């Protein structure tokens, strides 16, 4: 196998560090999801293996402090806000469930000791986001959308806490099942078209959940999902998000991670997959959704995470003798294994 094009590690490192210092005004629409951008940027440094040695202890401390500044408590429990964009005391600046999930992972990457975390409050917050049909909303009491993104975040938080007692797991699982389509993927809401991102969220949620009365997926369902996912790989090696659409690097992550969770990762062409990601590198740093497009923090992190799962499976020569090496990655919770180990040993309540 020919060596892959080089992975421009130092340029991507600089890109992520710059974004943490300043985002351009053109990214103003992430004001209400800044915590996710923070996660993508810190995550990029974590995946590239430079978080501990190419940032200072002072930087990491100040980043942790900023994240904790977004931690809020109220009658709905405790969680993280996307950022200070509302900074009022009006009940309109509640925590956000997706941002809470990304904050917990970012803090784990930064090796926070979670001594400031109120576990009971967090459990209460997650519970306050659950709706009567089993789904979860962005914010407490039915606020905002209620698609699978929130449900996955809720399940991740419960899994990290090691405590599922505050939510109704079985009704949530029934909601996930109602998002399944005849193609074998999952839509964002019941009766929506199968999509790579939401299929990852659904499959990951089913695997995060504690065991139930029946297997979460039947053999036939598993085979159909596998079939749909494997067929998402386009002639370019990249994954498309929906049948018939163009490939996009973020779907390399969503589809690739879903296949990892199903232990079906050996059934795709990992070389063409990584080659597509290599071609998505933007010359001035970061990765883009497709070759020739401008980069953004979201696609940078997800492409590298996709590469982290598949590049290590290639021959040494294809990997450019270490260029495309990554530390083991956890596809269920979406971070490096050692970061997840840290999370699992520091986030749950201490038992006395």
């Amino acid at each position, binding site marked *: 196998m020919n060596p892959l094009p080089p992975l421009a590690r130092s340029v991507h490192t600089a890109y992520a560090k710059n*974004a*943490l210092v*300043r*985002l*351009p*005004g053109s*990214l*103003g*629409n*992430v*004001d*209400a*999801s*800044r915590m996710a*951008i*923070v996660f993508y940027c810190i995550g990029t440094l974590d995946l590239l293996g430079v978080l501990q040695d190419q940032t200072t202890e002072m930087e990491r401390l*100040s*980043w942790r*402090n*900023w*994240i904790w*500044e977004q931690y809020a408590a109220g009658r709905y429990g405790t969680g993280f806000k996307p950022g*200070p*964009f*509302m*900074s*009022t*005391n*009006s009940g*309109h*600046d509640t925590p956000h469930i997706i941002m809470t999930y990304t904050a917990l992972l970012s803090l784990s990457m930064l090796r926070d000791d979670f001594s400031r975390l109120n576990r009971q409050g967090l459990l209460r917050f997650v519970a306050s986001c659950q709706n009567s049909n089993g789904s979860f909303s*962005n*914010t407490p009491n039915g606020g*905002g*959308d209620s698609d699978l993104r929130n449900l996955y975040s809720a399940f991740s938080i419960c899994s990290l806490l090691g405590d599922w007692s505050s939510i109704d797991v079985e009704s949530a699982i029934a909601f996930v099942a109602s998002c399944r*389509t*005849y*193609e074998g993927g999952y839509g*964002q*809401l019941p*009766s*929506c*078209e*199968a*999509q790579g991102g939401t299929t990852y969220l659904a499959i990951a949620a089913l695997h995060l959940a504690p065991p139930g009365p029946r297997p979460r997926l039947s053999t036939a369902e598993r085979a159909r999902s596998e079939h*749909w996912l*494997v*067929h998402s*790989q*386009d*002639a370019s*090696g990249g994954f498309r998000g*929906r*049948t*018939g*659409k163009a490939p996009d690097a973020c779907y390399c992550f969503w589809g690739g991670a879903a296949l990892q969770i199903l232990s079906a990762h*050996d*059934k*795709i*062409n990992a070389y063409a997959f990584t080659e597509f990601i290599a071609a998505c590198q933007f010359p001035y740093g970061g990765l883009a959704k497709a070759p020739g497009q401008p980069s953004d923090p979201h696609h940078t992190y997800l492409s590298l995470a996709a590469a982290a799962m598949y590049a290590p499976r290639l021959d040494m020569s294809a990997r450019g003798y270490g260029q495309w090496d990554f530390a083991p990655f956890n596809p269920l919770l979406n971070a490096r294994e050692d970061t997840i180990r840290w999370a699992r040993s520091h986030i749950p309540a201490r038992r006395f």
Partner: protein
Amino acid sequence: MIPVPAPVLYAARDEWKDVVPITQYEKANPLAPILYSEEYKDATDYLRGIVQAGEKSERVLQLTEHVIRLNPAHYSAWQYRYETLLALESSLEAEVALMDELADKYLKTYQVWHHRRLLLIRAGLPGAPAELAFIAKILRQDEKNYHTWAHRQWVLAFYNDDGLWAGELDFVDTMMNKDVRNNSVWHHRFFVVFQAGVRQGEEDRERIVRREIIYVKQNISLAPNNASAWNYLRGVLEFNKLPLSTVGPFIRPYTVSLPDPVDDGIDLENPGPGRGAELPCAAAVEFLADVYEEEGKASVSKAVELWKSLAEEHDTMRKKYWEYRIQQALVRA
């Protein structure tokens, strides 16, 4: 070009003098700070001020609209706007009209559609036919937009009104005629025919299943390499618990390079590939292999041969997947 004048900041307007603006509070080391424009900073300072004071008035509608136009993903501005609309008992028609413009502009923003849904829930059924017409208009510009299709499915399922459903299959046909490869349309068809759209008086499922199978066969005949159509065909058979072999005779001509010439005119039950079709069609080869696998026993070796041809010739990107299928079949045999 005539320069667009900078908007007058709220801070400089007399009619906003009574509001105490609240600047965004960040400590010394903000993480991933956004370089806000003066206009955005000013508008959100006043939004925070208004929200803190709990004011719900006409000018709040102007202010939230302004913030939303600058950042349509500002979910708090949307939320507060909705609460203000309710408090003022404002005209929902006017709001929907504004939303028609914003949905068009910010097609890919979750909040635009969420707000619309809240309005529709309050407006009730009278607004529904106009809503379907609006969605159709938006879909003409972006035929695969996920949010727009999701919204259409929500509208249909939420009102669940026979009158609304009545024109839906025609709508599917119109969209399909524009692009037979639009998977969103195929998915929507499944939703209409087999899921939420099933109406009373359609108890004769056998007739409907037959109609759908003919429909998809005709589509495949016109454009054989269309993954959406093949997925739909599988979906229809599986959902109705029919064996894959139901369509065995139809598939065969698509699995070879040169199909046998049709001698006795056109077979309506099994329309063959048109002239110039790129054959064999990988999806058909795969389908036929599954038919053989389903038959089991002696047929499995025929399935293995087809999978080999996919791995080595017709679908090499999925070589490993086909090799896995071969191995699985041999283990079971």
